[in-house]
């Protein structure tokens, strides 16, 4: 079947098998390998990207389901060569080591700050509770998100 998906603001279309998972469409058909393919069982959250305006686990969604919709991946976070504040936060606070969970964490963090600009550490932890990081112990990820929240508040002030 032929699908057309708006990916990071660009209309992309392809002939696919209906059984193709969204994560494989994004990585293998479109070559956007920022989103990672992890556990394949909707547990780890490495594949989190946005479908329309919602973070989803793209290993558990068919590309066919995204036909006619908008997808935003980690490649769509930066604006005119400037990293998104959540990306800056992860760099500044050492929010990653191996980097495998990072794209999913960034997409969830961006969504959280869009909906809750001044989160508590508990709210950050809850937001990423469906995502696994085996390096950081989460402490630096939480710090990174809170750093980004502070940065955005200061930018607005």
């Amino acid at each position, binding site marked *: *079947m032929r699908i057309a998906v708006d990916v990071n603001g660009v209309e992309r279309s392809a002939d696919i*098998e*209906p*059984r*193709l*998972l969204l994560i*494989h469409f994004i990585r293998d058909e479109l070559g956007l390998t920022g989103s990672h393919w992890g556990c*394949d*069982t*909707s547990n780890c*959250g490495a594949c*989190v990207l946005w*479908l329309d305006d*919602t*973070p*989803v*686990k793209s290993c*558990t*969604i*068919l590309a*066919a*389901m995204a*036909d006619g919709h908008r997808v935003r991946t980690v490649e769509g976070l930066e604006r005119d060569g400037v990293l998104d504040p959540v990306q800056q936060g992860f760099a500044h606070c050492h929010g990653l080591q191996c980097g495998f969970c990072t794209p999913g964490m960034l997409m*969830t963090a961006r969504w959280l700050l869009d909906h809750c600009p001044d989160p508590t550490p508990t709210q950050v932890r*809850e*937001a990423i*509770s*469906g*995502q696994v990081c085996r390096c950081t112990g989460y402490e630096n990820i939480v710090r990174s998100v809170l750093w980004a929240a502070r940065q955005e508040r200061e930018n607005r002030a």
Partner: protein
Amino acid sequence: MQVPAYVEYERATSVEHALALLARFGPRAQVLAGGHSLIPMMKLRLVQPETLVDVGHLTELRYLTVTGSVLRIGALTRHAELLAAPEAGRHFPILHDAERVIADPIVRQWGTVGGSLCQADPSEDLSAAFAALNATMVITGPDGTRAVPARQFHTGPYETVVAQGELLTEIQVPITPGAGSAYEKVGRRVGDWPVGAAGAAIRLDGDVIAAAGIGLAAVGAEHFAAPEAERSLIGAQAGEQALARAGQIAAEHARPVTDQRGPADYKRHLASELTVRALRRAVARARAAGRSAREG
């Protein structure tokens, strides 16, 4: 690498269109909503439909409203939407208790209430919550709609009364002023299926229990309910003694099985203990609701 087997895909644009597609493709078609239960099952070849009928775009089934004294939940309401809906939490705190511990925030963004119910996993939290609330399931088919009590909806593990060619379209929950409800779950880790879980809905007359609903998940309770334990509560003083007895009766009627989540005797213990805890909180909430109604 886990991928589903070859399958065809059809997207429904209305309930009528969905029903027509289901009629056209027959018993080898499967309804796809959020896909968060079905796609994992397809990856494991536990189900292998020839055609998926995607109803996930039917916004007409994505709503949450109070009509008269009934909360109506469209079957395609996402878990996150139910959790965020103040009218659900105000009338039925059990639904928010349960939603908070269903999967994780990202899965709740896409998984649907109706999809979870139709998946009919014996450990499904919402099935127990709606059993406790004595909800009604509205099923739409080619000949119109029919209403089925929540306690007759499931016919066995992964089986419901929704027939080939039909769709679950709405869940209706009767609102009882002054009632209280709660949900208690024990899992191995955050976001996991329950080892055991219990929900309770209570209406008080003074300090006497006038109505009681108890739902159980993952402990082998028939239809996710504990009717014998409920009966033991009617007319009793809403105190620890009656609650403990109800927990005991609920556990006696549960038929848990040993699996990787825990041994049967531990699950039976949970059936009792979690029933008591859910009842305790439901009673406290019913008292608070009664107080605010009197002061109201």
